[in-house]
């Protein structure tokens, strides 16, 4: 009996968890996924996957999956409703608000978990059916700084190479990322490469697992990344490691950088970052002297007040050493969600249509207007944090949130909840009730990645097919069908019979996607830009950068202190991140056996701090910032430096994001999740018999 005879439906699809983009073989029996195996020919995963992609599929048939539309009844509870009723209500309310307050009183969020086609129709719905550019997606709160900075420095908004570059590199620097937990398959590839001789340098406030496999680990103070990158550049320049022929032929703006570097001698950087000067020098030499070396980074770079500037400084370093545009010399941002690259590529952004074409560009705007048969403004719409500000101010009256639990994952939860509360009308389209649906007037039951067709774009800019292994449960529908129905009810019919038709329109309107079609994507995927003849681009910038004159641009940006710093009241710095077993808000992984593997979260702190605070391993602690307070157990570990503490945000009961303020990246409004000054102290789990003496105010 061949393997396929055990199952009644087999599809090859693309994982819906992180941005690595593993290709999977999903097997279903009687309408349930029973097993998922990695596809041997998956370009990013090459026959491997992790415990999320392989095992965490049971959520798809959990009893609490949303199966019918829900409408907020007069008594305040959500009640089941028909699709006709729910869509009619949405059309009526959004039309009323548009007519009385204008289209810009409405905003939408597309989902980085959904397909390219879903995101494309969502932004078309907001722009064409409603008439506003108030559309954004959750890359705002993760890699928008990367997207922005890569466009400024090199021209295109994506990795310059592929995961294959990890194996072609002689050295690599990994900055602010923990791939063996956040991107496990990429992490495994990096680890295997180190075992075969890759010289890996890790830069992270925590000693991550890959630090044990690297040749050098640097632990900077949270918020000092800019100084570290400038220090590396200083050493490269000082020690004669600059690739001058590359600089002269292919870049502009180095002179201003050279002047700036004088202030970032290793001793200066040691003062700012705490990294020993000798280690910084060694790291610079490892990178610059390697024949091919790559730079990889994650949210530890971007989720800062100056995250976008640090990405530009990372680009500077690659340019100084001429390490871009060839195998093994790549810049690889580790994108968080399965389609966070694609949701931005698809124009679910307030300032760009598909392929980062500006809404302010007259020719571009007219092309979209002609195709959609509408007229649009030339001014950008609101970014996510601006939407919440506008809602609290009473200017934004309605939101349509698709596949994002903002009340759990966005910073400054108190402010987000106030914004959701202030809205006149909120539509949430999701697969489960979550923290955000508490504030919804209509909840639409949608589909998971196992139940839909379309494409995701991974962290290598690779567009890959998604196939349905099972049907959406109950009356739930695919996001694509829901969005088309809502748009039609608002009076804007989209001419798509299937996601494949939507992709054809994307290709027609987007020069970088000109040759993309579902048929061409096939089993191997296509890395954009894709020419009209279907030729794709695994490596960017081999001969020219996508900027005027074909030259890359240096950025002369100094180090500036972070938005939040430890002080007497909040003496520790909290860094937030991820755990291997769970994914983001945990909506899916907490409903699988992964919860048995990791049932709760903890706060990591250094033994010195633990001793000073009278905290033992396992004790319940209170973590208080200027914005909120949470409680969770402590874990004492030497993987973190004294003065720093760490936790994740996967568990709604912990509500980590209550602690995060509104400080955000200066260019992209990406929140500063990675630096929060906090006060940690033990909490008695039961009231003590003797009244405690009050803590100092």
């Amino acid at each position, binding site marked *: 009996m061949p393997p396929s005879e055990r199952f009644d439906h087999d599809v090859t699809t693309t994982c819906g968890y992180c941005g690595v983009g593993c290709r999977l073989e999903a097997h279903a029996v009687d309408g349930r996924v029973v097993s998922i195996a990695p596809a041997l020919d998956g370009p990013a995963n090459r026959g*491997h996957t992790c415990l999320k992609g*392989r095992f965490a599929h049971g959520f798809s048939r959990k009893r609490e999956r949303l199966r019918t539309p829900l409408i907020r009844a007069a008594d305040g509870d959500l009640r089941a409703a028909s699709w006709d009723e729910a869509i009619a209500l949405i059309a009526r309310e959004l039309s009323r608000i548009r007519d009385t307050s204008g289209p810009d009183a409405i905003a939408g969020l597309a989902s980085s978990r959904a397909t390219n086609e879903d995101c494309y129709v969502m932004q078309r719905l907001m722009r064409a059916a409603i008439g506003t550019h108030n559309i954004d997606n959750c890359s705002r709160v993760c890699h928008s700084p990367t997207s922005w900075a890569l466009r400024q420095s090199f021209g295109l908004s994506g990795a310059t190479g592929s995961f294959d570059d990890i194996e072609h590199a002689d050295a690599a620097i990994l900055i602010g990322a923990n791939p063996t937990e956040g991107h496990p398959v990429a992490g495994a590839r990096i680890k295997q490469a180190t075992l075969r001789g890759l010289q890996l340098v890790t830069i992270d406030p925590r000693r991550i697992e890959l630090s044990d496999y690297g040749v050098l680990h640097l632990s900077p103070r949270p918020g000092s990344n800019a100084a570290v990158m400038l220090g590396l550049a200083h050493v490269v320049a000082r020690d004669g490691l600059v690739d001058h022929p590359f600089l002269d032929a292919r870049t502009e703006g180095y002179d201003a950088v050279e002047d700036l570097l004088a202030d970032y001698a290793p001793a200066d950087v040691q003062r700012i970052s705490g990294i020993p000067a000798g280690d910084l020098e060694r790291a610079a030499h490892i990178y610059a002297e390697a024949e091919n070396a790559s730079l990889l980074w994650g949210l530890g770079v971007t989720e800062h007040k100056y995250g976008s500037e640090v990405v530009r400084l990372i680009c500077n370093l690659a340019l100084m050493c001429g390490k871009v545009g060839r195998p093994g010399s790549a810049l690889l941002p580790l994108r968080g969600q399965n389609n966070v690259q694609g949701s931005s590529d698809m124009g679910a952004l307030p300032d760009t249509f598909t392929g980062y074409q500006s809404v302010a560009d007259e020719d571009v705007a007219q092309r979209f207007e002609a195709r959609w048969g509408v007229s649009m403004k030339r001014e950008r719409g609101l970014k996510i944090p601006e939407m919440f500000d506008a809602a609290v101010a009473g200017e934004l009256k309605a939101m349509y949130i698709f596949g994002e639990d903002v009340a759990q994952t966005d910073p400054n939860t108190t402010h987000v909840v106030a914004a959701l509360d202030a809205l006149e009308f909120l539509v949430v389209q999701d697969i489960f009730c979550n923290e955000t649906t508490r504030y919804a007037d209509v909840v639409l039951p949608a589909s998971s990645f196992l139940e839909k067709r379309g494409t995701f774009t991974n962290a290598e800019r690779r567009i890959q097919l998604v196939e349905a292994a099972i049907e959406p449960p109950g009356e739930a529908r695919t996001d694509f069908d829901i969005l088309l129905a809502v748009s039609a009810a608002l009076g804007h019919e989209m001419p798509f019979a299937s996601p494949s038709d939507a992709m054809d329109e994307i290709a027609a309107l987007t020069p970088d996607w000109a040759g993309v079609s579902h048929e061409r994507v096939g089993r191997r995927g296509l890395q954009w830009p894709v020419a009209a003849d279907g030729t794709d681009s695994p490596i960017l910038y081999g001969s020219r950068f996508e900027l005027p004159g074909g030259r890359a641009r240096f950025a002369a940006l100094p180090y500036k202190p972070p938005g939040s710093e430890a002080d007497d009241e909040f003496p520790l710095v909290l860094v937030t991140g991820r755990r291997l077993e769970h994914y983001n808000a945990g909506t899916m992984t907490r409903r699988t056996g992964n919860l048995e593997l990791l049932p709760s979260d903890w706060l990591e702190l250094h033994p010195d701090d633990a001793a000073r605070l009278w905290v033992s391993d396992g004790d319940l602690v209170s973590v208080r910032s200027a914005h909120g307070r949470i409680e969770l157990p402590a874990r004492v570990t030497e993987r973190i430096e004294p003065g720093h503490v760490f936790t994740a945000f996967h568990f709604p009961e912990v509500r980590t994001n209550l602690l995060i303020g509104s400080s955000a990246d200066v260019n992209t409004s990406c929140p500063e999740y990675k630096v929060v000054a906090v006060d940690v102290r033990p909490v008695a789990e039961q009231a003590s018999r003797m009244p405690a003496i009050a803590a100092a105010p």
Partner: protein
Amino acid sequence: MSTPTATIRVEIDGVATEVAPGTTVLDAVRARGGEIATLCFDERQEPFGACRVCLIGVDGAPGPVAACTTPCRDGMKVDTRDPAALRVAAATVELVLSELPGPPAAHTELAIVARGFGLQHGALRWPGAQHEVEHDERHPYLTLHHELCISCGRCVRACDEVQGAFALTATGRGFEANIAAGLHQSFRESTCVSCGACADTCPTDAITEISLLAMVEPGER
């Protein structure tokens, strides 16, 4: 590294063909659509040469050789249907089967290879000692059925060479050879990261997904 340019000429079952230097006989045969049964081979791992099932005849060699670890050499003549090689390979599989307390599940690689050699668990020439049933089902997804382990080493190598968790260990010798998570711990107590690469590669379902256990119909067709 320099890119190899020269090609190597070999003859497979009488058909001349050219391959790149470093190509193994197994790769060369499979690249041309041919089939050689294997048990310890997985394209994601370095060839191991342990199971002695992929045996072939090579002109001038003193006996059958393992296709997975034998590199093609210029002028080599390979016979994938060499009677001595097939006889030894079939006997090897027969001995492997004889240690199992029952026939392997029909969908497994071992069952497919056994069928290829016309072997049935119930009709073996050398019935001998069989492994005692010992199941570990303490993990939410992964289960370990020790009696089905044939010591091919694929799970250990998947854990080391694909994932890098180094959680699985080969234990014991001879009939006692088996595998263990960590130092005879459960998966969860070891350094296992639950990636499932071991279950994915296992040719006998000694490690498999708990969710699939209920779907397996034991026995042979």
